[in-house]
């Protein structure tokens, strides 16, 4: 264990370099560069608000904030887990040639997406202020779901990276599963009708929905639902532990399969 921690510190500069590389290369050669991390969620928010707000009749002024908060968290989860899923196979040339602790590949994929995600929260802050959603003492709570989503994504990413090495189908399967997760996250609709219809468990068993819901409570300046927060925290930690366990169990076999 002590050796592992020492090894982690030895390679922390590489982790930083890999994260930097992910951020730098994501927007390299596009004219607006890193500005896209702000523009993209803003534009999607406008589209979603027009489609699901105006056309479907959610005319509340703050609907845009509601949509944007959900969409930001979901797109971080989907992009980072997708990147982690491909991280081992995508770096196969390097894995076959030099020794680098293998968890650095999924971890750096998650982290660089996290940095971009944190940056894009600026848009959420601005839109909230413009539409009259002002921060209060409860807003500070958002730190908890922001940490939980990182743990959840890293855990899921470790599982996916492991599975992805042995079954390539996972890349296609995961995009279908992500769609299912998206629809059970209540991103662009209010969950009340589903929750009151007796099928609320569809949402509540989804840890990502619970994280998004807690995050929204914070943004709208309300106290969080403690039961939901505990469930989100518990399931995220469980998935993380499972991810680390399966990754460590299987990592020595990776090289024989890529």
């Amino acid at each position: 264990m002590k050796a592992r921690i020492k090894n982690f510190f030895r390679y922390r500069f590489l982790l930083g370099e890999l994260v930097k590389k992910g951020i730098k290369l994501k927007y390299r050669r596009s004219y607006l560069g890193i500005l896209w991390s702000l523009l993209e969620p803003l534009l999607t928010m406008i589209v979603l608000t027009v489609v699901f707000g105006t056309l479907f009749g959610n005319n509340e002024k703050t609907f845009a904030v509601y949509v944007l908060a959900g969409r930001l968290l979901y797109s971080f989860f989907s992009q980072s887990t997708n990147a982690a899923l491909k991280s081992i196979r995508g770096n196969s040339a390097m894995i076959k040639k030099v020794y680098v602790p293998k968890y650095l590949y999924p971890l750096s994929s998650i982290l660089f997406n996290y940095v971009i995600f944190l940056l894009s929260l600026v848009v959420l802050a601005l839109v909230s202020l413009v539409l009259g959603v002002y921060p209060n003492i409860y807003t500070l709570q958002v730190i908890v779901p922001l940490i939980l989503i990182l743990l959840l994504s890293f855990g899921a990413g470790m599982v996916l990276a492991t599975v992805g090495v042995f079954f390539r189908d996972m890349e296609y399967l995961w995009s279908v599963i992500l769609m299912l997760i998206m629809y059970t996250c209540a991103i662009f609709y209010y969950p009340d009708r589903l929750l009151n219809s007796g099928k609320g468990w569809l949402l509540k068993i989804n840890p990502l929905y619970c994280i998004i819901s807690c995050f929204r409570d914070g943004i709208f300046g309300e106290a969080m639902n403690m039961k939901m927060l505990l469930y989100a925290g518990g399931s995220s930690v469980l998935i993380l532990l499972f991810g680390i366990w399966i990754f460590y169990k299987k990592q020595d076999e990776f090289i024989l399969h890529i």
Partner: protein
Amino acid sequence: MGKEMIKVDHVSMKFNLSQEKIDSIKEYFIKFVKREIKYDEFWALKDINFTLNRGERLGILGLNGAGKSTLLKVIAGVFKPTEGSVARHGVMAPLLELGAGFDMQYTGAENIYLYGAVLGYSKSFIDEKFDEIVSFSELQKFIDVPLKNYSSGMKARLGFSIATIVAPDILILDEVLSVGDAKFRKKSEKKVMEMFDKGVTVLFVSHSLEQVERLCNKAMILEHGNMLAYGDLKEVAQKYRKIIE
């Protein structure tokens, strides 16, 4: 002399060569149910055992497919041995696959930091040695150009310059260094020789007995993953001569 640098302890390496490539879950399930998953076991290394002390230079001889490169990769830590263990002490410079970890969209300067990090250098170390790396590689003019525009010789020069900037205790070489043009080759050989003079421990893989005799003071013969001979250069060289004749 004397200090133990590398200890290879009963190392065996098994590969499962699956007869058919199974790439999908569906295929896997069908084959699993029909019990059709077969693997050909292939032992690339069998019970390899040796220690190297400071200043010893080991030449690893053998024909194609004898397991030479696999042994180097096990020692470098890329492969984890199926059985046995490898202990290493000190800073290791594996000149195996120069530039593994280079990113083609990154510039030369960015790649120095990236590849340096891959090799386990610290940021302050690279900051300090940056100019030395650039001037040794002779790429001053191209250091801010993306790597995809480099010729293969330029990439190799940059890789060599980064990998050899440390003062290693253990040097791992696969075949002779044929990096870049004749002028750079001379320069890189000189650099490797300087390391030899400092008493570095060397692992050197080659087909060529002549090169091993020139560079090494110990030798080993591998055949189909077995260690046929190990010991003093002269004795082993004689044995190898008999094998290849």
